[in-house]
């Protein structure tokens, strides 16, 4: 299943490394990445591929704890909510 992962927070060393290491450990494949600094905020979006029957709630929780360690907000949502809203 496809999901959009967003990371927003104060820029520091090791955000991308920390997030992608965790994703690898969770067997989540990164399909696409964009990253920018918006209004002094580190803003990264990743399109991810989760294994079929993945434990979504579990993945969400592990990412939350990584976010706490890195001092950023990590959000993961299934892709469909964005396509439903913005594509006909």
């Amino acid at each position, binding site marked *: 299943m496809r999901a959009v992962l967003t990371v927003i927070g104060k820029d520091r060393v090791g955000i991308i490394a920390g997030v992608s290491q965790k994703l690898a450990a969770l067997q989540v494949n990164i399909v696409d990445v964009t990253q920018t600094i918006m209004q002094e905020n580190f803003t990264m*979006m990743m*399109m991810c591929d989760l294994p079929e029957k993945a434990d*979504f*709630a579990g993945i969400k929780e592990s990412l939350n704890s990584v976010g706490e360690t890195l001092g950023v907000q990590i959000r993961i949502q299934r*892709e469909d909510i*964005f396509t439903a*809203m*913005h594509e006909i």
Partner: protein
Amino acid sequence: MQTNQILETMRMIDEENLDIRTITMGISLLDCIDADSDRACTKIYNKVTTKAKDLVKIAETIETEYGIPIIHKRISVTPISIIAAATPDTDYVKFAQVLDKAARAVGVNFIGGFTALAQKGYQKGDRILINSIPEALAVTDYVCSSVNVGSSKAGINMDAVRDMGEIVKQTAAKSTLGPAKLVVFANAVEDNPFMAGAFHGVGEADVVINVGISGPGVVKRALEKVKGQPFDVVAETVKKTAFKITRVGQMVGKLASEQLQVPFGIVDLSLAPTPKVGDSVARILEEMGLEQVGTHGTTAALALLNDAVKKGGVMACNQVGGLSGAFIPVSEDEGMIAGVRSGSLNLEKLEAMTAVCSVGLDMIAIPGDTPATTIAAMIADEAAIGMINNKTTAVRVIPAKGKKVGDQVEFGGLLGTSPVMAVNPASSADFIGRGGHIPAPIHSFKN
């Protein structure tokens, strides 16, 4: 997928309070009818707890995976006045209690359908149900009740109007929150997912999933970007925003229906406020250029909003239903409360507003000593607006025990806070005392 679109969706949810107000499972109880009321209650409990077993769990999974809050999970059932009429019972409180127990067991927020449809006259069950309402709402936590007293096709049952004035008073005497769970309708709809008026119509499928969306904050924010521009632009902006909001409702409804293996009924395109700042319908009207809701121009602003929401939403989903429009409950809307406090918004203006939006006089606290006949006359006025304009109207007023105009009433949670509003002191007693039936309007004869 573009970055700014992803951020827009996230901002709507995080900052502008976009949410799915409710996933409501409609359940038919027609196959639970039994001449023995204990047996009927057992069948009702078993059916509701079987069909809705996974409702809350699946709704919570959707929330987690898609990141969209689903505020309420609810159930609506076939009007109990029909189900219970087969029994010799002379009191239906038992049925309300079994609904309450079933709601508690499956973990939903409300169960609606302690309902009577009496627009043309009373069948035996209607009268018994109506008389059971005050007690039923006092002894249950989750049950919501509604009575339909009029329709464009049938006219207005003025006996029911008179009786409901009394019942609202009696309900208030028995419990503070009771009247907040009771709504009196004209042109009640059979697939409404919103409370207190949800019930599962007899023409509906056995089980169905209906979704009610929300998001006044999103519309308000969108209008902030078109300040000072003509109304054509305002209408277009509301339409586009409503489209986006409704697409999320459609997606959530479809997911819930697939996962629960229950047919998807409708999306109710409503802007439903909450007492939270940034989640107010009144503030949208003010954003259009009114200093305070209730002033001259409010009705026109609401008419535009209501219509544009429908136009945007109807393109976004397969089937639209329910009440679909803007809700204007006073106690549940921070901007409406401010309007009442400042003296700008009064009952008369609210009545005018109900002629152009999707509901009626909703969540309004009135002095505790308001006569039952005055409440009945308020119901008659709203029913007349609904009957003539072919729309749903409703009355959900709360006579606040021992309170005077200007006092505060706290309902808590989504039901909010309300200042007690002034009612016209002149008597309507002789008008209500007549009873009988107001005939259907001439434009009802369309065959």
